């Protein structure tokens, strides 16, 4: 239940403290109140509609790489 994945911020709505994030081409509105200092193109960990922490791009990409590897492994 505490699942969280890094997502990229592609739009910010500062009035509402919300943003649009993107993961594998899917866009979703998320709540930014716990991580208000994010900027466009930053990465955050998304948990059930809320950003819970900012992460750097390198860490996020490492996770994506591991996830992809896992998918390949499952398919092989």
């Amino acid at each position: 239940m505490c699942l969280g994945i890094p997502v990229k911020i592609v739009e910010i709505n500062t009035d509402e403290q919300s943003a649009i994030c993107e993961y594998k081409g899917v866009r979703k509105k998320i709540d930014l109140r716990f991580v208000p200092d994010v900027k466009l193109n930053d990465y955050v960990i998304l948990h059930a509609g809320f950003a819970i922490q900012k992460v750097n791009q390198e860490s996020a990409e490492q996770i994506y790489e591991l996830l992809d590897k896992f998918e390949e492994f499952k398919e092989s």
Partner: protein
Amino acid sequence: MNSLINLKNLKRAEIISDIKKAAEDFQSLNFMEVCGTHTMQIYRAGIPSILPSNINLLSGPGCPVCVTPEEFIDKAIAYLKEGYEILTFGDLYRVPGTYGSLEKECSGKVKIIYSPSESLEYALNNSDKKFILLAVGFETTAPLFAAVVIDAKKKGIKNLFLLCALKLIPPVMRYLLETGELKIDGFLLPGHVATIIGSEAFRKVCDDYKKPGVVSGFEPEDILQSIFILLMLLKYKSRFLEIQYRMAVKREGNVLARREMEKVFQKTKAKWRGIGEIENSGLTLKEEFIEYDISYIHPLKIESQVFNPRCRCGEVLRGIISPVDCPLFDNGCSPQTPQGPCMVSSEGACAAIYKYGR
């Protein structure tokens, strides 16, 4: 069973070989994970089969749905019958109470949500209906429910309430260590709980009991690295806590999320399914937000029946038995016909072993 060793991944093979070498210094070790996502990943990746035979991984009470008591489901069903509509994460939908499950009883009036914030939309768009949001989860999710309550109050919403069974991880770790029912040599600690409460909260537990713990990420590599770090902590004994999931975990956690959680909730005695009551291990709404607590606004007395006595989820949750030791495992209890919560939730130890572990 597929194992990680089949992966063409040198880095992974290197960690496994480091673990094997480091484990030679020890007799037998029990490492407990207290996170449903870790449980699922451990079995999904076949990690137990590639570890040296003296390292035993135990699944602790880390799946929120699994530790939610039967009476909570009974209560939710009772509220449905009183005319409320229920909003819940999908995981809880099929969990059996002592009478039935939300799915079996009144599926039409139960809405599955992805985020607690969706409940505000439901309440605003249906002012003629009354909604109960089932607040289940650990510290990772509690701030989200706090945010919903704060927003509901700000927007003047009067038709949304919480049925609260939020729980806290450090107190249940202390409980397990205090009872000494089980030899635990180290903990794999939940990375996203620590993202919110901070590594310091876990350091206190590990230091108090001189028990190593590693705050771990969620990919198989992260978990393997964390197991290796646990072995190093046991070997060198210089400290008891290490953070492997450094990308997201800070010493103080997420201060804003913690503040929101502390504004809305206070600690309370809570019942854990299969374990019993533990002081200060749960959260309840504070006086200032009591109008959102359905147990206060509309108290219901329910009489729960005796739960299936053959279901041994309680012992699975305390790490005492492996799911395969339960007489119902794959013998009347499966993800299609779950008899207990550990088989319902995809993060439950029984479901994980049923799906990946054999």
